[in-house]
């Protein structure tokens, strides 16, 4: 059982790491409900095993390691393969995620600003995809278009937003 101080320390570390872990789980599972369940299970395991955590290592990397095992278990239990990677590739994917996640989290403010500046129609398409979790086929039927065209549009929107975010972050760095 963790002492009160340890519990508080855990909560602080988990609060910091949780967004990166949640994003990781969703990115590999590709199913919001399953991702939520897996995140809960991951949190429980991370809490139970917190005494094993080596504080010399980044907490987020350790927590991602736990999440990775949960995802592998999920794939086995569900007899499905949302990820095509073999174990070695998945390990590399997880390590790369742990390395890049902290830097990418800095994009959030710029990303919101860029979204604000978007026209209504592309914003609606993003809303359908990312807020309502619609597949490109469903979006296409709403637009009276084809799913391939929707996929192209989504890809262009992501590229535009990335360019906007990079520009915005350059400006902020200069201003600061």
């Amino acid at each position: 059982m963790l002492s009160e101080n340890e519990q508080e320390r855990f909560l602080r570390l988990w609060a910091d790491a949780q967004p990166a872990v949640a994003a990781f789980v969703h990115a590999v599972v590709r199913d919001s409900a399953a991702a939520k369940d897996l995140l809960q299970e991951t949190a429980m395991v991370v809490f139970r095993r917190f005494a094993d955590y080596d504080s010399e290592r980044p907490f987020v990397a350790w927590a991602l390691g736990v999440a990775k095992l949960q995802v592998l278990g999920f794939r086995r239990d569900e007899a499905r393969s949302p990820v095509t990677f073999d174990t070695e590739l998945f390990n590399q994917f997880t390590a790369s995620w742990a390395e890049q996640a902290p830097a990418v989290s800095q994009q959030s403010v710029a990303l919101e600003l860029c979204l604000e500046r978007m026209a209504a129609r592309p914003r609606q398409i993003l809303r359908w995809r990312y807020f309502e979790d619609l597949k490109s086929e469903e979006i296409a039927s709403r637009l009276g278009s084809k799913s391939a065209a929707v996929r192209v549009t989504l890809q262009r929107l992501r590229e535009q937003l990335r360019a906007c975010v990079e520009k915005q972050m350059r400006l902020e760095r200069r201003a600061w």
Partner: protein
Amino acid sequence: MSDSKDLIAGYLDDSLTEEERQKLAVWLKAHPDNLRRFVEANLFNENLRAAVSSHCQREAMEAFSPNLGILPWLKVRLATRMPLRGLLASPAGMAVAAALALVALVLLVDLLRPSASGSGAVSWARVVQTRSTQVSASTPSLQADRPVPARRIGLLAGAVELSLHNGVTIVFEGPGDLELVTPMRVLLHSGQAVVRVPGNATGFQLETTAAQIVDLGTEFGVKCGPGGASEILVFDGKVVASASGKGAGFPLQLAAGTGTRFTSDQPNPTQIAYRPERFVRRFPADKPVELDEPGSALFNTARYEEVVVSRLERSLTIDGDLSDWSDVHSFRTVRNERRGEFIEGRMHYDEEFLYLGAHIGDPAPMRNVVDPATDGEVGWRGGGLQMRIATDPALGWPVEGNAAEYYLMRRMTTDAAQVAKATNSHLVHLTMWHHAPSAQPCLHLAFGMDFHSSKVNPPGYRAAYRKDAHGRGYTMEYALPWSLLNAPRVPHPGETLAISWTAHWSDQGGRLWRGQWVEIRNATEPRRIHTWERAATWGRAVFRRVSAEAPCSSRGVRPR
């Protein structure tokens, strides 16, 4: 689909075929840079998901413009520490604590999910102290002498003092939403804040939707109210402020002792009264333990589902004395026996008025300092009573109609019929409080679950308050004209209107909300839904002709 860009896009859109998945795996293994690029694309995609969700929620809230929804978030946690030391003292206690910690952890997975712009603690900002704070679902708990746990702080109630590493101090008062962008720039999305800036941080900026304020070494307060209107009071020194957005105007210098109001649709600000008491500038040095402990959770199990509203046979005097009211159908519920917090209520009606009388047990009675002229939409914050009522008998019971927040938190979209129900002007929200500085009984009205057409102290109603002789409670009486409540007609005996009461308690200063109790509530509705977000949660007011009614054991109400 052939090249790597298309394969990544296909993965992100969940549209890869099995063959394409295999191709993607081969490509990823071909070079470490490929994997790096793939991870980067996924990270951006997940960030985008969070940002779009956050954006959609904000957009929908702005579209509905709620200005009375007291707590714009659904889930809350108390910003207090659990008394763990005592619990951990025994093995059994440790087992219980472990189980509780695991349960809490599962909840935290949801609750600690920061907004898109708010991931991680802010290393350059620290929580100095908190008072009766309740944070939103997306905000981790605020603990004194700890770094601010997220860049964006949603505060449902209470106040928090923050200190930035450059010496800037911010007292942020809920309900509201504050975003710490850099040590020199803060966004106040809603709520109010007082900022003290030392000389070395001159140039500090605070922005709202309607105004940008640049500090010139000073202390100032800003309220970002309904519709984004921003009011600035300069307590000391000077600031430079300008309207932002479409109505951007020339920067103006505002001096100490002035009040200025900016709205998002007008470039020119207007002068407002300088009333520094509207803001919490400093926390009281001494903390009255009894009153400052956080109230209770936002959700309670109501004791009553129904209240009988009997027709008056003789006139009532509105004087703060309930002795001339019939108590046949009165109801009583206790929130906290030890602190003496309870509600005793009764209702009557006649052709002209709906009458509401209450005796409220309150250790800090009638101290509300929320000014009806400037902050009426948050009159509940300093203690008082809210009543929500559907004034059209044709609406029946339960009444349909949900606030924007109800749909947003469930990621549901609305159709025209749902919006029409939500904006029905026969759904009326009343906030009643005693404004201590002017000794004035106040009334704030808003209509529909979008809280439109709000009015403060409109002509026509009569009200009176009287403090208990022992000073630990008060009596209130209101005569509310049916016309003011937008009722199409007076209910007939036997008809039912949807209704609900919420009593609010504050701190001793009559400024910081400490808790509430909801009474007369639909027992079939889940407990963790606010009455301000869903009209179906309201209980029943059954209208009776007094002569036809005999007192019964339940005294006219149905205890649950």
